[in-house]
């Protein structure tokens, strides 16, 4: 940390290298985490924020080693609790840009409670969840996002736990920004990281991340190059939901159920398709999109929801200002002498 990082203000143009540390990156060769780290380091200089004002906070798990590799302030905390630590940092100093790096076990299993409450409070935190649908660091047990029936170290006959959908949880918890991307699409990932960075409030980005050791290829059915155009769909604000190699398939709503239609067949036109609105006040539509899974549906990526709402720390700082305005700045003399007092001579 001493040989670099002498930035004194935002005016200095930083490069990707400025965000790298001298610590050897210790993820398994071929891990999807490398791609996420590379994209975060690539996006960082473009944000124009001095690196001393950036903090990366993580819990426990493979993904949570992330802060050690970012030449910013960093805190590798305890399992599942990163959002709590991050809340304390952000509330103490709202000028900082605070990122939370977590995994499917960390955020959704042991840390489900903190994940939910950080989102509902709308603390301005940028939460990236590396979802590899497995416990990697403890060597291959099933996670809360593992598919039903998956065989692994702790479920040799297949899991009997129904998985949770991280996006459903985020919507239910009132997250003001919800997005999804994947390690194998660096360009899209970079765009999503930029969007997350720009959001004011609790932001959540799920990243499909391949664990090539314990759960290799869990997403490849739909995100491999040859199939992804037909099996995935990119959400774009204000645009109809169109996908497919020939750009002729689309999503139409039938009541509250999405259905796949082909434009130009059976009288279907583009006008029949669902138009994505990431700014809708209520999360009903994005919730429906977040539930679309392969093989029934193409898997959506992009920004599902992005709405504005006062943040927790803004409101807290606001209450402090109001208290100072109405009561005056705190006086210790007055405080200790408050209530009924008497003098003994």
């Amino acid at each position: 940390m001493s040989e670099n990082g002498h930035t004194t203000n935002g005016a200095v143009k930083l490069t990707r290298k400025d965000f790298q540390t001298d610590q050897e990156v210790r993820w398994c060769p071929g891990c999807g985490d490398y791609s996420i780290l590379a994209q975060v380091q690539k996006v960082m200089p473009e944000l124009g924020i001095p690196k001393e004002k950036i903090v990366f906070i993580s819990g426990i798990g493979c993904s949570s080693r992330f802060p050690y590799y970012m030449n910013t302030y960093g805190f590798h905390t305890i399992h599942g609790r990163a959002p709590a630590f991050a809340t304390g940092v952000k509330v103490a100093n709202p000028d900082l840009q605070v990122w939370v790096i977590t995994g499917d076990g960390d955020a959704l299993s042991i840390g489900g409670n903190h994940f939910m409450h950080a989102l509902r409070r709308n603390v301005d935190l940028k939460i990236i969840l590396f979802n590899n649908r497995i416990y990697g660091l403890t060597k291959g047990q099933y996670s809360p996002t593992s598919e039903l029936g998956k065989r692994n170290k702790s479920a040799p006959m297949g899991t009997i736990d129904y998985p949770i959908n991280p996006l459903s949880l985020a919507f239910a918890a009132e997250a003001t920004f919800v997005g999804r991307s994947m390690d194998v699409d660096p360009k899209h990932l970079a765009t999503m990281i930029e969007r997350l960075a720009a959001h004011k409030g609790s932001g959540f980005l799920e990243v499909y991340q391949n664990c090539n050791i314990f759960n290799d290829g869990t997403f490849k059915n739909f995100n491999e190059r040859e199939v992804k155009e037909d099996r995935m769909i990119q959400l774009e604000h204000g645009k109809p939901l169109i996908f497919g190699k020939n750009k002729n398939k689309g999503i139409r709503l039938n009541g509250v159920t999405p259905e796949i239609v082909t434009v130009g067949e059976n009288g279907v036109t583009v006008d029949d398709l669902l138009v994505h609105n990431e700014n809708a006040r209520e999360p009903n539509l994005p919730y429906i999109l977040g539930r679309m899974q392969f093989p029934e549906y193409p898997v959506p990526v992009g920004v599902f929801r992005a709405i504005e709402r006062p943040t927790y720390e803004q409101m807290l700082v606001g209450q402090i200002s109001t208290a100072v305005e109405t009561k005056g700045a705190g006086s210790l003399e007055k405080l200790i002498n408050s209530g009924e007092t008497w003098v003994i001579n």
Partner: protein
Amino acid sequence: MSATTLEETVTKLPIEELEAVTIRFAGDSGDGMQVTGGQFTATSAVIGNDISTLPDFPAEIRAPAGSLPGVSGYQLNFSSRDIHTPGDEPNVLVAMNPAALKVNIKDLEPGGILVLNTDEFNDGNLKKAGYTANPIDDGSLSGYRVFKLPITSLTLKALENSSMPFKQRERCKNFYALGLMYWLYDRPMEPTLKWIDDKFGAKPEVAEANVMALKAGYNYADTMELFTSHYHVGKAQIKPGKYRNITGNEATAIGFITASQLAGRPLFYGSYPITPASDILHELSKHKNFGVKTFQAEDEIAAIGAAIGASFAGHIGLTGTSGPGVALKSEAIGLAVMTELPLIIIDVQRGGPSTGLPTKTEQADLLQAMFGRNSESPVGIVAPATPGDCFKMAVEAVRLATKYMAPVFFLSDGYLGNGSEPWEIPSLDSLPEMKINFRTEVEGFFPYMRDEKTLARPWAIPGTPGLEHRIGGIEKKHITGNVNYEPDNHDFMVRLRAEKIQRMQQDIPPLEVFGAPEGKVLVLGWGSTYGAITTAVEQMRERGHAVSSAHLRYLNPFPSNLGDVLKRFETVIIPELNLGQLCMLIRAQFLIDAVSFSQVKGKPFKVSALVNKIKEYL
């Protein structure tokens, strides 16, 4: 104010002078006994008595009316001499219903005054309290001076012109009872009238009804010549100064605000509601104009996690709870040990294990504070001795935590937190200086470099250019702070963290001995047993016994002279509201045959119990 008021209250009945009185108000948990006791206390303090209180309320908010678990009590001792405890046995018991009588009568001194609200002694209530015969007329109370008064109907009669609904009028009976007691003990009504006005000013009919009930009770006692005499407890010889009445939890809250102001850094309080610590959260949340940030977290773990995060970012990170909450926070405390961040953990101890006795007091978390984490994870521990002392020890906890970059426990308990005493308001100049020096110099910076004297690492907060660094729960390389798994480095770091806490000793005052510095018996205490121990030892010394006492406010590390103090006595007795936790530490560290005197009833020690124990060793 008090002088004129006292003269005005002189009436035709004789006034007897008493040195000290202990009153217990007891009733249903909805009867307002805490308010009644609190008002009697505040008034007694204002007119110059020394006071000590013991509120005792059930865990249930509203247990079934009239039932034994629903009884709420408030005991106070007021005196014309220096006192340290709420009194062993009440001289007076006010019982608002049969259940209150049943629960409390065994504590009333023989021949004591018993005031009963006869209206409530009906068949239903008697049955709920488990009485087969009405104690009012079965002769079972003949050993007491019983005053049978229909307090509920007298209150309703006094309020017959009030526009309030029946239920609300009935609820004023606690003020009626307070009026009776004010007359009996020659107290002025003005402080309570003013309090009613402040509290209910927005609801004039409620304020008026309470005022009428209070005055009616007072006048009834006066004009009916209800009691054969009334009593006067003169002013205590209290050290000159300016005083206020304060509970331990209030003193804790304003102590931490004061500490943060002295340190020049905002206070961040992360907490999850828990009895008996919640009042600290309530109090702190009122003081946002001091820049105090209170965060009511989703659970105990988030509360401490946020506090550690705030500390990392340069605030005074504070979290508060009771024993079960400490259990949940253990892992995070370990992280604060590893990352060497200042953090204060308030534990307002209560009866346990598990949920235990949520509203009752105990001192059984000492070893949890000391050792209740995985591996070697030393922390500082301080413990206030009295409600007012919570203020001073809060400042001390912050001073040590920030100077040594380490977690520090603040071990209060339910008795201290809810109990109150007159507190001499300190002069701000007398408070210690607290310098916080954040590291800003880039040249030569390493996150785990050390201050030579304290072994503290630098506090380099996010936002400081050029000092970007990473911390976390994985073992650190000495100086650089990088992740490190080498055996020798780990051994070194474990010892270094222990040594750092030990070095707090150079910053804590020596232990003072009350009484002769040597002799037959030393009574060594910590925490809320101070009052009972001091009173017992005072009594023994007045009778010429070679007994001294010493009270530990710093439990880890101990004061440097503790070993020398212990050596000068033939016997060291350690009274604790646990099964001998301090005793275990003392025996282990000093190899002396200390005697444990333990009690775990959810209540403080009685002075008489301590006196009897001490006598065994003389």
